[in-house]
């Protein structure tokens, strides 16, 4: 039996150590699973975590892969801190991509100065609106936001599928489900530093992601808004006494996380694809949830967490090419990592002891 008794204070070393130990344990358990299934564990771990960044240009790939994760997770942190469980980031991403795409496709001749800001605004709006559905249903009808936001991801995926195969399909694409290519003004270009040239595939969206993470940290740590969010999550009754409106906070955090996801969707399409396709997200919305937890709901840590998780994703490809492992093995790592992190939280907040079970019924004394 595991018994937990609350700690009075949380030692700092423990807080920093927990993610490290969690990652280490994940590697160990992963290695055991690999060995059981007949793969050489050391080789597998190497392919997963070292090979993907063994060349300098691959580091750029890492940041590019982490970009949507960082943006979405920065937004999710707001929701989760307030105990609002937005699981629908995947769908909000899709709507953001669609709204941004609408601008690019309907007004292809806009100049760069107008096009990009418009797409950013619309991308955020798309995600925001999609997140408003669970927000309003929760605040007005007390409907569980987890299930609503989740069901909406399936709906969003079907919506973009229909749109790209139907009204927005490129008449020049021989009937294939592709939107027309975006005009150059609508594309997010690679970063070019005079003297250094292009840094691999690194694009401006990555820079934006880093800025967003820092901004999110600032809002959460140093503004009244951030304070409201944290209070409503940790001590909702105290928050109500202080005059904070729970419905407003719910709407706000869902709006923020939805807008972030929508922005990430628009960025991904503009930076990597240049046109809308039936599938524009590959689980980023769900992976970002893990990133948010790995970062222990701290937006600054989201950057590091995003890179680590992105590494595992790239590692999956690498392990496949080198070892013939199936792609889904990244899911195993991600799941174990999340388990370890959550348990680590417990170790932070409680003294954990293994004890003999104590029967709850008090024995009647003989006296």
């Amino acid at each position, binding site marked *: 039996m595991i018994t937990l008794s609350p700690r009075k204070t949380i030692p700092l070393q423990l807080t920093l150590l927990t993610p490290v130990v969690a990652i280490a344990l994940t590697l160990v358990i992963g290695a055991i699973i690999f060995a059981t299934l007949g793969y050489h564990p050391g080789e597998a771990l190497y392919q997963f975590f070292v090979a993907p960044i063994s060349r300098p240009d691959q580091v750029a*790939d890492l940041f590019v892969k982490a970009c949507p994760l960082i943006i979405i997770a920065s937004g999710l942190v707001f929701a989760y801190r307030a105990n609002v469980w937005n699981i629908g980031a995947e769908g909000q991403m899709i709507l953001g991509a669609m709204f941004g795409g609408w601008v690019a496709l309907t007004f292809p001749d806009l100049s760069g100065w107008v096009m990009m800001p418009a797409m950013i605004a619309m991308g955020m709006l798309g995600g925001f609106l999609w997140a408003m559905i669970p927000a309003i249903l929760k605040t007005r009808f007390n409907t569980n936001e987890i299930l609503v936001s989740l069901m909406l991801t399936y709906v969003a995926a079907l919506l973009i599928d229909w749109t790209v195969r139907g009204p927005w399909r490129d008449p020049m694409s*021989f009937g294939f489900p592709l939107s027309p290519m975006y005009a150059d003004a609508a594309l997010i270009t690679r970063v070019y530093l005079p003297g250094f040239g292009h840094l691999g595939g690194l694009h401006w969206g990555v820079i934006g992601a880093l800025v967003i993470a820092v901004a999110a940290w600032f809002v959460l740590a140093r503004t009244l808004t951030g304070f409201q969010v944290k209070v409503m999550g940790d001590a909702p009754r105290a928050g109500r006494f202080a005059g904070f409106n729970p419905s407003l906070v719910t709407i706000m955090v869902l709006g923020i996380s939805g807008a972030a996801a929508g922005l990430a969707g628009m960025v991904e399409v503009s930076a990597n694809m240049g046109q809308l396709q039936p599938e524009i997200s590959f689980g980023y919305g769900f992976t970002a949830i893990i990133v948010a937890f790995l970062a222990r709901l701290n937006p600054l840590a989201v950057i590091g967490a995003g890179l680590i998780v992105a590494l595992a994703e790239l590692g999956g*490809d690498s392990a496949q090419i080198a070892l013939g492992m199936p792609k889904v093995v990244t899911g195993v790592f991600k799941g174990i990592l999340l388990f370890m992190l959550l348990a680590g939280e417990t170790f932070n907040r409680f003294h954990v002891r293994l004890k003999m079970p104590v029967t709850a019924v008090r024995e009647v004394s003989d006296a």
Partner: protein
Amino acid sequence: MKHLLKAAAAGLVGVVAMAGAAIADPVKIGFVYLTNPGDHGWTYAHEVGRLDVEKHFGSKVETTYVENVPEGPDSTRVIRELARQGNKMIFTTSFGYMDPTLKVAKEFPDVKFVHLTGYKRSGNMSTGNIRFYEGRYVQGVVAGMMTKSNKVGYLASFPIPEVIQGINAFALGMRSVNPDATVSVIWVNSWYDPVKESDAAKVHIAEGADILAQHTDSPAMLQTAEKAGVYGFGQSSDMKAFAPKAQLFSSVNNWSPYYIAQIEAMLDGSWTTGEGPDHWPGNTWLGLSDDYLVLTPFENMPANVAAAAKAAADKVSGGYNIFSGPFKDNAGNVILSDGESYHDGNLWNDMNYYVEGVIGKIPG
């Protein structure tokens, strides 16, 4: 200084390696698969091609494959990685890899890229395709003769040109022997989803269909057919093992001759995609006549049906243009009159309708 020496040594090794490669080193060839070869369908057929390549060229080539690569930016990375790892020819086996392949082809002008079932080409990217619809015409002929309820159920994946071509070719074949039969289409919205394919097959059967056809990749439809005592056609690979009593025949994709031809052209230096902007010679689209499409033996059908099927297959191999008039679409409009026929471009650009005999409208 140490770095300079290292670089010089590497350079020397590189020169020697290249010289060696020109003499004896196996040429590395990469394959990018959408699903895994165990699907016993689309990717399986490509895998068969790859294994034939290894058999044919022996130690002259060394092949690698990456499976379960989703279409989109991930595929760009995978293709790029294969190019970086020294593969000299890379086959990308799904339509959705088209733009990623084009992108990477620009970055690696010395590597040859072969994209399948698409339509974009460049100086070092060619296109290969199979006239899948030819097999479906023959399927339609058999279906038209075998059906007693005059209802055929079709499982389709996505409304892309290749699939529409298949449905229409099937219907044309079917109506050529049985003007009363109809085809009903369910869109599974996936290439491989055994549960959904099974459900769709059951629904078709419940609605009265006694022949089933699929443009999806799992054997689930045929197994459902076998259980229900109806018949069907296999897709991409021979599915007889899964449904010995139900499979009438299967259209098998035979990529081996194409792969071997492309690699031979690369090895003897004659590989070309022609001149831009269209790079037409870089496009290969063959079918029954060149054994790119192979029909498995006709089974579970009476002799006269098998004979008719053979006759239809021979007719198509012999050059008959399936899409030649007269025929109408299912709203009654005349598409082609007697004497007119489609050329290849029409098949991609103009086929946004169902021909007579197919129920409903194309989605989207």
